[in-house]
């Protein structure tokens, strides 16, 4: 028989109405204040940084206006500056990286959540996430010393021989260029897309999966009909996060992309990205229009990065709150 304990005797002082010590009261108040301050400082920092960027960019914004975004030339000597070639370089390198990384990430996640033997899941998962631990400058060095020559001497000529009729693979192969940068970026964004996708795949309701299998579906059919459609919004969120990471990458990309602000169709050609250009030129940019134009580039980058991150969070939250 279950007995409930007798109710506490109600007298002048119940066991719970003990006088709260002053130190505890102050401590609670203090905790609230301190942690509140920490949160406030973080929020204030974001506002401060955004304000500084837009404030310092305002001379260039005032001078060039929105035409800056469409202008192709970046010429410090005559003072003509335009973001178009960097927008193109950033967009193409990130898009290409996503194109390669997303199927790879989904494949790895499917393997690790559905198909791998149990003892393998954790170690392989750790290895994939360790890819994120490689400092960006080391990836850049590897890109220059190892990957670039392989790309320029073997992979690109191979692509050219089969697909050289496409403008995307025209021109002469080079160790430095858009393809090298895009593939290095792939390595950098793979871990984040994989880890978010894995989480999302793990949340697929087991009941739906078992139902599909019970109805006679093969493993692949179950993944295709139940797991992936449920996970699709989450994968979109992961892709957006990877995109946000990719567009901001300055060090590794600027080491291998060739740094030539131009808009060309071929992936073998050198190009330039916004983050890479800012990192390269800022220390030597003379104060005035040049420096302000670089900060204008930074402002554009900040907007895109913020949008990508916000969109990613909204999409991922939408799927998990279900």
């Amino acid at each position, binding site marked *: 028989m279950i007995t409930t304990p007798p109710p506490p005797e109600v007298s002048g002082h119940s066991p719970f109405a003990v006088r709260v010590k002053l130190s505890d009261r102050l401590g609670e108040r203090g905790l609230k204040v301190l942690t509140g301050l920490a949160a406030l400082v973080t929020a204030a920092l974001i506002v401060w940084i955004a304000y500084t960027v837009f404030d310092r960019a305002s001379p260039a914004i005032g001078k060039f206006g929105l035409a800056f975004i469409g202008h192709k*030339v970046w010429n410090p000597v*005559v003072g003509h500056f335009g973001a178009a070639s960097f927008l193109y370089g950033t967009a193409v390198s990130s898009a290409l990286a996503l194109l390669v990384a997303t199927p790879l990430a989904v494949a790895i996640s499917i393997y690790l959540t559905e198909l791998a033997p149990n003892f393998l899941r954790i170690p392989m998962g750790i290895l994939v996430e360790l890819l994120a631990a490689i400092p960006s400058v080391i990836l850049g060095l590897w890109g220059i010393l190892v990957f670039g020559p392989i790309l320029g001497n073997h992979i690109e000529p191979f692509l050219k021989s089969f697909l050289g009729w496409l403008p995307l693979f025209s021109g002469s192969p*080079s160790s430095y260029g858009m393809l090298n940068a895009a593939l290095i970026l792939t390595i950098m964004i793979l871990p984040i897309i994989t880890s978010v996708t894995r989480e999302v795949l793990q949340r697929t309701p087991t009941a739906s999966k078992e139902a599909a299998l019970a109805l006679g579906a093969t493993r692949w059919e179950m993944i295709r009909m139940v797991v992936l459609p449920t996970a699709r919004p989450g994968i979109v969120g992961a892709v957006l996060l990877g995109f946000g990471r990719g567009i901001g990458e300055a060090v590794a990309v*600027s080491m291998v992309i*060739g740094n030539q*602000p131009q808009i060309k169709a071929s992936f073998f050609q050198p190009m330039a990205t916004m983050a890479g250009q800012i990192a*390269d030129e800022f220390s030597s940019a003379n104060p005035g229009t040049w420096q302000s134009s670089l900060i204008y580039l930074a402002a554009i980058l900040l907007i895109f990065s913020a949008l990508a991150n916000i969109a990613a969070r909204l999409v991922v939250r939408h799927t998990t709150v279900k």
Partner: protein
Amino acid sequence: MKRQFLVGLLLSAVAAVGVSACGSSSSGTTSGGSSGGSVANLSGAGSTLVSPLVSQWVTPYQQKNHVVITYGAVGSGTGIQSITSRIVSFGASDAPLTSSQATACKSCLEIPWALAATDVAYNVKGVSSGLHFTGPVLADIWMGKITSWNDPQIQKLNPGVKLPDTKIVPVHRTDGSGDTYAFTSYLSKVSPQFSSSVGVATSVNWPGGIGGKGNSGVGGVLQSTNGAIAYIAIAYVLDNKFDYALVQNAAGKFPTPSVKSIAAAAASVTSPPTTGTSGISLVDPPASEPNAYPISTFTYVLVPTSNKSGVGPALKKFIGWAITDGQKYGPDLDFAPLPSAVVSADQQVLQKIK
């Protein structure tokens, strides 16, 4: 648990106070040691080109004079900005100040304090070091007009050398650099078309080719690209034993880049300005100096005319030392000594510092 936490907090607070006390006492000795009116700290920022030489200067100078000199190789542009806002005592720039920069800096003096040179290096399978080039041919290469190594214009300058039909890949610096300034000055002087289409600056809009960051970035592109040709600081070319070009000077000769040929170029400067408000161009020296190396450049220290109490004399002393005794540290780093005409002009300009 709470007590342990409190004790830990107290100990770390004591440690922090102790460390800061030690730190302040050590800086206290340097500032307290000199006689009244002399200054303890000179801070500088700017050019990366001159930074190895400044590092060589700091230790011997600090030992003999009670002053602490710090220099940040942050790039000429940031250096100019830093001295304009007076957050450092002196700036360093590879290019002379433009008129708007000079106005913004409010009576800053620019004093040439080191002499460096830029060379052209290349990496072509089957071709060894020492190819002959002229200025106009180099300009055409970087403008994308000459595209392969066996172009008749290059072959004409190098009869008897078997040149492959490899594509030329011109390499440039992406970060602002004194080497870019020297090289574009030279190309603009020898090629009017280069001057109008690209121009002179520490960072220009190159018509094509690949960019690398810093001498090491450019060196990396050079080494891994067959057919690449690049302009790099002489010290870097010689240290890394790259194949380098011999560029024809105004006298028709092809001098080997060395401290001697750079000094010969500097000897062509006979009456340098003493105003302290203009730079000295040294590229493509006249034929009167037959062994002059054509792509040399002065690099400048930027000093305000009026300074806080005590800083002016300290700056005068340091720069005065750098342009005389300090020059002996140059040749090991492939900086040529300043010619005497420039040193005397500099000493006159130094008198203007208060």
